[in-house]
């Protein structure tokens, strides 16, 4: 009798456990996409890569005229030169990447199951430098952004393809990124989602809030505000500061996890980096 009771309760707990399991990344992605499809029914899926320029005619016209002389063009040329210049030991960046580093940005970030860490493109660029006896570059702007811009440019048109393997550490990183996106923070007590999901398309003072779907495809980005090119972690820091939250360091585990989740949500969209934004 007691044995039967134990078996019954164990089975009962097992089944109730399965209903409490967190939604899978695939399920999250489905819900994410359908949310934005409902919110912006007139925007075709691939257009989301253009952010606010997909949802506002006036800013799109301005952006199109800026794109006549793309402000990031010079950075692509600089980046190409940096990418092709060998290190002191004679090797080049191509030796560290699949396909010689050409047309591969859509795979980043990825989860390295061996080290248990998220690998971002900028992270891989600096790892390549250190591996070949060079000093690492600054994370947010300058040369690293130029190299990333060149690699983004060669990846244009490729569909975002971030993978979350069914490895508990990978799922934990994904969940950490997801939590960062939805958690309120800072003196203004706002989350990424508050602006870019629940209020996407609404105005915040003089700016229009971009939808989070398609957010990452155009990085690194030339922001008119910066008057220069910057990486996605540079923007994360800025966003955190805007809600009066002390930002994490660029390429910290927290921002890497965020980038992992954030980019996964743009899977299937075509890369269009480097981009120009306000």
């Amino acid at each position, binding site marked *: 009798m007691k044995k039967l009771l134990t078996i019954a309760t164990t089975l009962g707990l097992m089944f109730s456990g399965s209903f409490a399991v967190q939604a899978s990344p695939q399920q999250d992605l489905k819900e994410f996409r359908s949310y934005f499809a409902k919110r912006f029914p007139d925007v075709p899926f691939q257009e989301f890569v253009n952010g606010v320029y997909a949802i506002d005619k006036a800013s799109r016209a301005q952006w199109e*005229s800026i794109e006549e*002389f793309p*402000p990031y063009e010079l950075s692509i040329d600089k980046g190409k030169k940096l990418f092709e210049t060998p290190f002191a030991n004679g090797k080049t960046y191509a030796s560290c990447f699949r396909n010689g580093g050409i047309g591969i940005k859509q795979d980043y970030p990825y989860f390295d199951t061996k080290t248990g860490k998220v690998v971002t493109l900028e992270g891989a660029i600096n790892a390549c430098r250190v591996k070949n006896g060079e000093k690492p570059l600054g994370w947010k702007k300058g040369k690293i952004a130029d190299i990333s811009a060149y690699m983004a440019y060669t990846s244009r048109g490729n569909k975002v393809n971030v993978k979350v393997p069914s490895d508990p550490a990978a799922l934990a990183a994904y969940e950490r990124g997801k939590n960062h996106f939805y958690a309120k923070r800072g003196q203004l007590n706002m989350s990424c989602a508050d602006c870019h999901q629940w209020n996407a398309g609404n105005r915040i003072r003089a700016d229009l809030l971009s939808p989070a779907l398609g957010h990452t495809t155009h990085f690194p980005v030339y922001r008119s505000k910066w008057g220069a090119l910057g990486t996605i972690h540079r923007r994360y820091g800025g966003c955190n500061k805007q809600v009066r939250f002390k930002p994490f360091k660029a390429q910290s585990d927290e921002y890497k996890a965020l980038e992992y989740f954030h980019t996964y949500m743009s899977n299937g969209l075509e890369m269009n980096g480097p981009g120009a934004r306000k």
Partner: protein
Amino acid sequence: MSTIKIRAKAGDKVTKVSALIEHPMETGMRKNKKTGKKIPAHFIQEVVCELNGTVVLTALWGPAVSKRPFLQFKIEGAKKGDTIKLSWVDNKGEKDSAEAKIA
């Protein structure tokens, strides 16, 4: 490598010329953050645009014009295939020019 990116598009009545010039346009008032000394003035003083060799625009600039100046203007009497030439001279005497065919 030219510092000028130029594009000219012919419309019904007017031709629109757009140009982006790579130039620091230093006012001479900014200070070097490390040394505390003023960064010397370095800005474009004159911009000239010619249509098939005839001057159609002369611009006299000063330090008020920002870095990487973007210039856009419309002209009449131009047609597809004509040559537009843009040249600039700065306060140091440096200069550059670029040509484009009207599309």
